[in-house]
């Protein structure tokens, strides 16, 4: 998954402060060569700022940025071997698709025949053959997104930076582009740094994900680790639906102090009389179904436990009807789960001090 040798991007002590706002604070980060790396977080968490600092659009307040073996901290954007796919695509409206894609080669004075060949190659990579002569206003959102991608890829940068490039597309197109982006990344072998606030998108595409909050990395891990072993309540809540057990509830149900999280699909719901007995491996807790939410592939039931917590239970809709689930609304049920599916989050997280990072 991760290449050997010096990292593609190496960031040390990176900070960016706007007056009183600390957008990024004391960031250390290594992104490996050839990696699909995602920066995930809510808006205002600093992920886009990190991307802009790497691209060189803004100078950092403190810290260094290295691309491969070169320190590029003080270099202008045009002097860095990275290219960016912008959130609004930033396609030049007065140029044709081909002229847009050729732009980077043209300003670097690449000879016309080679320029043309590489631009057509890049358009083929993003499956836009035959669109070279079109004007940007004649393209759909998805096609513009591909032009922006081709325009960046044609320069064969060391690193491609993508700033929420799929945000403006509808869900179906977004899913298609997720798969395609991943394919393109494997094909061209360039390091992708992808900024998104969509946890599903990050889980789908990434080799590793850094979860940002308040200008810091909350956790840096592979998608599986991030989902199965969240390091804090914030990460558990931001990546997937999380069920938190803490305080008195944790004491009663787990038998220990602390904060614990369990994913909805790891919970099993039973009728009151059909519940298994609790033992060393299995925990059980009675409660009342408060809400049933039909989601197509699965159904979520919200259960209020007698112990005090409210947990969401997910089950696959393998039958054609969810009448059985709906009938349980306001009924008493028993939840059970395997004790080893419960993840301890350590101490309750404080938004100011990040929880210990798990470097993978």
């Amino acid at each position, binding site marked *: 998954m991760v290449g050997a040798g010096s990292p593609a991007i190496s960031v040390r002590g990176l900070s960016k402060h706007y007056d009183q706002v600390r957008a990024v604070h004391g960031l250390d980060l290594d992104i490996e060569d050839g990696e699909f790396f995602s920066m995930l977080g809510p808006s205002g968490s600093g992920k886009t700022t990190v991307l802009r600092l790497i691209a060189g659009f803004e100078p950092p307040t403190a810290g260094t940025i290295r691309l491969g073996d070169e320190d590029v901290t003080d270099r202008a954007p045009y002097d860095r071997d990275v*290219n960016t796919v*912008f959130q*609004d695509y*930033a396609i030049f409206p007065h140029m044709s698709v081909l002229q847009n894609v050729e732009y980077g080669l043209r*300003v*670097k004075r690449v000879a016309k025949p080679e320029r043309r060949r590489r631009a057509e190659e890049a358009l083929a990579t993003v499956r836009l053959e035959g669109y070279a002569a079109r004007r940007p206003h004649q393209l759909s959102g998805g096609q513009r997104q591909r032009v922006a991608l081709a325009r960046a890829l044609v320069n064969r940068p060391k690193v491609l930076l993508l700033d929420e490039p799929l945000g403006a597309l509808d869900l179906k197109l977004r899913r298609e582009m997720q798969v395609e982006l991943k394919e393109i990344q494997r094909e061209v072998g360039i390091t992708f740094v992808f900024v998104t606030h969509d946890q599903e998108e990050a889980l789908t595409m990434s080799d590793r994900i850094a979860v940002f909050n308040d200008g810091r990395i909350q956790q840096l891990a592979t998608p599986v680790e991030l989902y199965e072993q969240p390091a804090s309540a914030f990460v558990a809540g931001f990546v997937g639906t999380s069920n938190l057990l803490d305080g008195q509830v944790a004491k009663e149900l787990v038998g220990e102090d602390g904060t614990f999280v369990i994913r909805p699909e790891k919970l099993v719901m039973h009728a009151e009389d059909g519940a298994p007995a609790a033992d060393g491996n299995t925990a059980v807790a009675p409660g009342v179904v408060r809400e049933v939410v039909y989601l197509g592939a699965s159904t979520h039931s919200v259960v209020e436990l007698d112990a005090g917590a409210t947990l969401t239970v997910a089950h696959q809709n393998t039958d054609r009807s969810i009448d059985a689930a709906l009938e349980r609304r306001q009924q008493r049920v028993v939840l059970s789960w395997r004790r080893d599916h419960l993840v301890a989050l350590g101490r309750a997280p404080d938004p100011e001090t990040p929880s210990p990072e798990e470097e993978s």
Partner: protein
Amino acid sequence: MSLISRRPGLRVGLLLTPPMLWLGVAYLGALAALLVTSLWAQNDFTGNIERTWTLDNFRDLFTIEVYRTITLRTIGIATLVTVVDALLAFPIALFMAKVASPRYQRLLVIAVLMPLWASYLVKAYAWRGMLSSNGLVESIASPFGLGTPGYGLLATTMTLAYLWLPYMILPIYAGLERLPNSLFEASADLGAGSWTTLRRVVLPMVFPAFVAGSIFTFSLSMGDYIAVKIVGGTSQLLGNVVYDNQGAANNLPFAAAMATIPIVVMLAYLAAARRTGALEQL
């Protein structure tokens, strides 16, 4: 009242009638009267207008050498003023739109508009004072071994370029402000330095704004007759020829014929400007 509220067409009609009358009768009507006048003759002896149809005025305009020279000279001055204004306005507008902080931006817009609050005559006379011998221009230029250009076409060009500069800055400023910053960033990201970005991205995209500004600077310069009177020395431009024919010679038909030249030139100019999409920028 209820009749008006029940009949929206009537309401719109009542609302629009006075301004449409103004536009149709007073505004376009005056222009039509001017054109009709240009087809009349003047009795050389009595100076009275004779209402007989003739193309003599236009024949004189095209056949007498001096009027052709004056027409070309006026177009030349208007072009020069437009070019000078474009060159001055672009860096100012670029600074206002993309470099200055929002607070500073507002102050600069006010600073650009401020000269428009002062009377035209005052500003023209201010330039007359500055360009006089021992004036401001002379005292600045003399250390370099230069002097004031004196009154003439150069002084007229300088004064007109000063007077119409805000009309060029504002459309370009608006055009630049509409350009998303990400376009500048994308260009830099793809390897272009500042000059290349200006040449390949910014200038082509704000070109319609330049044309929009030039419609003002060009047409205002074409029709101007005061600046050339005040700082132009003995120079003749279309505007003051019209003025002299109307005032001193009292030859209204010929003045009217003369006045159709800037109108025709401007119509041709607007037709050309329309092709660039500049009229949508106004």
